[in-house]
């Protein structure tokens, strides 16, 4: 177990270096002058100034290997420089403020997706071609095709504007400070409801599909036949023997879909004005705040890598075959 985790950890190191290298390449996309973004009317500095700042920050006037080495040593020390925006605060600090919100949103989304997708998948797999199965199949196709930002707009029109039931932006109401403790929690939950609903919608479609597929494969296996043959009640056969095996690939799929889920924060956070990393990223792009952009890119992808690693180790924990297989292959 421990050896397997260690092995995965060592394999992640080249990926980590790769992340810094790809990000380094992104900086070099800047053709002569950092692109003149037409939409960036908000930008405070002129191209010349930005260019000067960029050269200074990333040593763009030095030879390439020197540049990369400096960039790498700075990242290792988590030094992403200072923001180009007027407040000029350290990038790490800016990201640190916003990270918890994005993490909270993504973890809650994951939990909801798994909690709903597993029963939906199992139910439609055990009753293949039933009414329920057909309805969920339609839901899956529509879920895949619905743009999340559009769903967000529709829900805002319905719940925010027409019915006025839910707040449609930010994390707290204006009078938050004057509310009692429980009222504050209620207010917070109300603000999170629509964003989480939007973010779970697409993911839920995908996961219930995977779960159904995985379950359909497992129930055809011989060991399910024998479990039935020895007279176990169907509830135990499905709920224990089949479910446990069908859940295995889901752990991997969960790990693989993480980048997608985190990337989705960009849209959800900027629509609902939630002060997380996604919103910070969009603002930074409009303001051409390059240190923030690069810091965001490196940190988000490193977090994804760590989460993938956790998923891998969890997988080996629930499925002993993986650990043994890895050892034997060596």
């Amino acid at each position: 177990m421990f050896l397997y985790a260690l092995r995965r950890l060592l394999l992640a190191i080249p990926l980590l270096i790769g992340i810094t290298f790809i990000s380094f390449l992104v900086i070099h996309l800047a053709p002569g002058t950092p692109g003149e973004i037409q939409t960036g009317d908000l930008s405070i500095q002129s191209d010349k100034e930005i260019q000067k700042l960029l050269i200074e920050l990333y040593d763009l006037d030095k030879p390439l290997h020197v540049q990369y080495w400096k960039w790498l040593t700075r990242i290792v020390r988590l030094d992403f420089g200072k923001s180009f925006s007027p407040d000029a605060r350290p990038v790490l600090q800016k990201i640190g403020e916003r990270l918890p919100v994005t993490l909270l949103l993504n973890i809650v989304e994951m939990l909801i997706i798994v909690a709903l997708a597993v029963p939906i998948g199992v139910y439609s797999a055990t009753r293949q071609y039933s009414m329920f199965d057909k309805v969920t199949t339609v839901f899956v196709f529509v879920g895949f095709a619905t743009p999340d930002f559009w769903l967000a707009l529709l829900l805002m029109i319905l719940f925010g504007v027409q019915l006025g039931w839910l707040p449609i932006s930010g994390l707290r109401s204006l009078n938050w400070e004057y509310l009692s403790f429980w009222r504050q929690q209620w207010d917070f939950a109300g603000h999170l409801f629509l964003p989480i609903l939007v973010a779970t919608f697409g993911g839920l479609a995908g996961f219930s599909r995977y779960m159904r597929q995985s379950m359909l494969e497992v129930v055809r296996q011989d060991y399910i036949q024998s479990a039935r043959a020895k007279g176990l009640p169907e509830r135990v056969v499905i709920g224990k023997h089949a479910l446990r095996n069908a859940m295995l690939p889901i752990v991997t799929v969960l790990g693989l879909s993480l980048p997608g889920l985190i990337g989705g924060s960009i849209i959800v956070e900027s629509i609902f004005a939630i002060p997380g990393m996604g919103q910070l990223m969009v603002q930074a792009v409009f303001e051409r705040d390059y240190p923030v952009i690069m810091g965001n890119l490196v940190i988000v992808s490193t977090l994804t890598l760590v989460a993938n690693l956790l998923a891998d180790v969890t997988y080996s924990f629930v499925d002993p075959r993986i650990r043994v297989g890895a050892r034997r292959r060596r």
Partner: protein
Amino acid sequence: MRAFWRALRRNRLALVGGVVVVGLAALAILAPAIAPWDPNRPDVKKILDAPSGVHPLGTDQLGRDVLSRMFYGARVSLAVGFVSVGIASLIGIVLGATAGYHGGVVDATIMRLVDLMLVFPRFFLLLAVLAFLRPSIWTIMAVIGLTGWMGVARLVRAEFLAIKEREFVIWSQSIGASAFRIIWRHILPNAMAPVLVAMTLGIPAAILTESGLSFLGLGVQPPHASWGNILNEGKDAIEIGWWLSVYPGLAILLTVLSYNLFGEGIRDALDPRLRQSVGRIVTRR
């Protein structure tokens, strides 16, 4: 081939999807001929008019006809979908074929590159790249293509690994055919079926990505219409002009849905076993 058509014809949903796909392409091509109004002509007397006989889907903040803008938006969305998937497939095929055919260190290197690219949350990478470039339809196509080839590469590699052990490949090698010739003339044609399916399913994914970027204001730039940027403008008039938010989104939903149905129909008709290997290899973002 005949079995393929028979299987496809039996799948009614896929047929409906196919008809919509063709219809959309026709709308996009014919946009200048069928659009009732000039999509870029503002009219101060018709700002935010609700849908009516004159403007079937209403007008926007500048008094431009929404239906006409959506016809032109279809051109942009479909063009971005096709070109970016073309770029992604080309990169994916070249890298996947090289990795699968040569194996060893080459394979290991290319596959680590694939792993690496998959670690980046795609929207963060797209935004970071776009921050340095001047946004235009061309950069959007290039950037979506350059960040979306990993699924095709994996798929092609897997096909190559299986096919290169077959006898006809070994025979060609024995008579001294070059690696290039074997890859392009002998193996690739046999590996194309799943790639075509992946491409069909990649187009809607690219359309969703483009509309997401345009919605954020970082994709196709006004005055060019795209479904995403009509929605972006609609967002600001959300309390008055619901039609600005509802119709373009519906168009995206319908397009993506039809392509998915059509793509999965082709996949099942080609070979039901592909269901396993060509799932949704093109992730949403």
